[in-house]
């Protein structure tokens, strides 16, 4: 049994610790939003967050996630916004109608969310650098760029709202 925290829940998985995290998530925990694309960490379809960092779960052993927080697309919105079931990245993807087939998009969104967590106002170059490990064969890249910028704005305004709210609380 290997214990990890998956989307906020502590889980014990009956799996070989050497098993790639991808298969543990898909086959053992049966969360299929995280996708297989290449098996070599080349395409990003399997991207999840490990303690907040974007990693390729197809080349990361389950053992690397022991006692760590794993977040998949199913858990991306957890605790971000109680009013909608979506993270601002997902909302921006919705507004820009980013997906075509949609298969690579969970990985794209996980990479984008990790980028925005470390860079609140990415430039086109920042986006290209952070996102070049995620392939989309349908060709949704122009919309991914747009959506990331939109999500960045939403996150910034959420943050300033939160700061204002805290200040108001302190004042009252």
């Amino acid at each position, binding site marked *: 049994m290997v214990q990890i925290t998956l989307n906020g829940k502590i889980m014990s998985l009956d799996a070989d610790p050497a098993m790639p995290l991808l298969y543990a998530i898909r086959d053992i925990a049966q*969360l299929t939003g995280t996708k297989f694309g290449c098996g070599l960490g080349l395409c990003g379809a399997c991207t999840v967050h490990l303690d907040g960092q974007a990693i390729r779960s197809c080349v990361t052993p389950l053992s690397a996630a022991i006692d760590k927080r794993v977040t998949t697309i199913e858990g991306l919105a957890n605790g971000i916004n109680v009013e909608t079931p979506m993270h601002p990245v997902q909302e921006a993807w919705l507004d820009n109608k980013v997906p075509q087939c949609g298969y690579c998009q969970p990985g794209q969104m996980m990479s984008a969310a990790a980028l925005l967590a470390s860079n609140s106002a990415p430039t086109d170059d920042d986006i290209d650098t952070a996102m070049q490990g995620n392939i989309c064969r349908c*060709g949704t890249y122009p919309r991914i760029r747009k959506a990331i910028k939109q999500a960045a704005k939403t996150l910034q305004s959420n943050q300033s709202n939160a700061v204002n709210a805290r200040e108001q609380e302190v004042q009252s």
Partner: protein
Amino acid sequence: MSAFKKLNRRDFMLMTGKAAGTLVIGTSLASCAVSNRADTAKKQGADGEASSAGKLSSTTEGDLGVFVNISATGDVDIICHRAEMGQGILTSVPQIIAEELGADWERVTAVLGNADARYGNQNTGGSASIRLHIEHIRQMGAVARDMLEHAAADVWAVEKNSVKTEQHHVVHAKTGRKLGFGELALSASKLPIPDAKTLTLKESSEFSIIGTDVKLQGLEKILTGQAIYAQDIQLPGLLIASIERPPVVGGKVKSFDAAEAKKVAGVVDVIRLKDREFPTNVNPVSGVAVLANNTWAAVEGRKKLKVEWEHGDNADHNSDVYKADLIKKVNARAKPVRLEGADIYAHDFDATKTVEATYTVPYHHHMSMETPAATAVIDDNGRCQVWSGTQAPQWGKGLVFAELGLDAEKDADKVEFNTTLMGGAFGRKSKNDFTIEAVELAKASGQPVKVVWSREDDVQHGFYHSIAANYFKAELNDDKRCDYWLQRVAAPPIGWIFDNTATYLSDGDLSLGFADAPFDVPNMAFENQEVSTHVRTGWLRSVGNINNAFGLGSFVDELADKAGISTRQMWMNLMGEDRIFDPRKEGFEGYTHYGQKGEEHLLDISRFKAVLNEVTQKSNAEESLPDGQGWGISVAASFNSYAAAATKVAVIDGTVEVLEMHTAIDCGLIITPDRVVSQMEGAMIMGLSMTLESEITVKDGKIVQNNFYDYPVSRINKVPSLHVHLIRSDKAPGGVGEPGLPPILPSIVNAIFHASGTRVRNLPVAKVLRV
């Protein structure tokens, strides 16, 4: 045969997996039984119909079932029986029905139909779903509307023609009374089905849903990780199968040792797949499957297999040698397929005014993000359930019946074929080899089995776009037009997988931008060269248009350069006066017209010109640029749509950088504008890596490439700003999924030439320049 019928609840459940509402209307039963579908597909494939006529589509009028299901609460389910692979058909088909029905889009849910002969043709390819079936889809909505209107008129005891549907209600304008669809569903369901031919369809000026960007069906599920693709099927006790297949195309298992593989924890069984005849239609190749209770164990077990192979007849196939031979062959006289005017061989070409060139494209692979996958389970009574991500559900279902030795009619209830979303397909998933692998293994193991392909499996065991050589020779006259024109093609025919005696491209293949070239040149010869085939070739997004448009679009640019005029002007000069161009009347009797009946989609020279002018103007492609930069343009019509592309590049110190790309598309009536834009964006991006960097090669019968590291596809950092220009039109709708791709390839190489003076005639560009 445009008959519609009410459907009983049980049938609805079988066909959709959903509970039926109150009013359920569908089309009449399709005329072909499932068992005939595979035969039809096979025949079509062999005569090339498949590659032109919407791939495997039959065009029988009325041979299409779309279903509307209205519940007592007014919720409307619209069944989309065509497969969804990212093109957005799950939105567009219901959108057309909702328009005619007068529904509120917010109350409409699209449901993906399972494989069922009663839907009529479900083979989703050839960019055909709308262009071949729109009339019937519209009639479906109109039938339901008519019944609801009748029901309301009866309630109010008014004339039927005094009421009409509006926003999910039937309204009586005179009195302002209205009743919701839900309130009317029960009484409407008791009325007879009207004759669809007597119903008036909306004028395009009345459209409020067609041509608008409605909310996309299924998008939230994709965004939250809830969408189900073939890879995602889970069943109790499911085994995962990973299959080792012959390294040489057409090879077989000689012997194998599974002892070590069986020692891997989690491995449950090792099963040798049947040997089948090669080329195997679309059946599986032979191999050894490792079945395990999770994917990792299956993958690890497979690594421990020891397999000896018989390599078969193709072990001496080398694509570099083969390509050199194709070039030689395409430079030799071949079988004429279109002749106009005087004997081209009697003409003495003036070398100072003649351009002669040969262009090649390599084999290509689809590289869908989701590798092939399918699940099958057979219960104690021999009933088989299948889940597959396929473009051809009924063709697949027919193969399942055959695999299990069942009769498609007598044993109809013994196979349930569920369709899933596809994570990309691009033609690859028309072939159900992976589905049959799952069925074979479910039967052999007695367990539920999901077959999953690794990326290497996908790259090495595909159905590749044909390697091809296109030859051109033309002489310019003093008016900068051409009087003499010769072109040839040499490429392995797609029909070979269905009939391995095929050595020539079929009429269908030749109708894909080759012998249908819309030129006004008095003396022309188009020839088709005989070749042998050594890998399984298949349909890949726009098929033969890829090499034909690359060759022709490059050659027109070379002629323009020789003539000292713009590429756009050269196209105008070659096409001549605005007119309707019917290749059958220009010497190409075999023209297959993308399976389109009637005259409405014959090539229209004015539409070619309009997209070319639009893209040139919007991109400013005729501006003068600094040294080292260049624009390239091209145009192609395919699948009854017209697309022109303009690309701007910089070539500095032998390195190509693509700066900007534009596409103008005239696809006739547009159903979902945003999805047309997204398909054009995708085509530009696919065309980019196809032109610049990717190729499949074969060494000693083995596919050399393995994964994204040696078959590179465009990544975000290589993609320039993209611009799509839609031409709005009332003309009959053309295809959308494929037509964007063909003009992209020549636009890029033409831009490279204008930027650097380097003419790339053999793709990919990366062989001669850094990309």
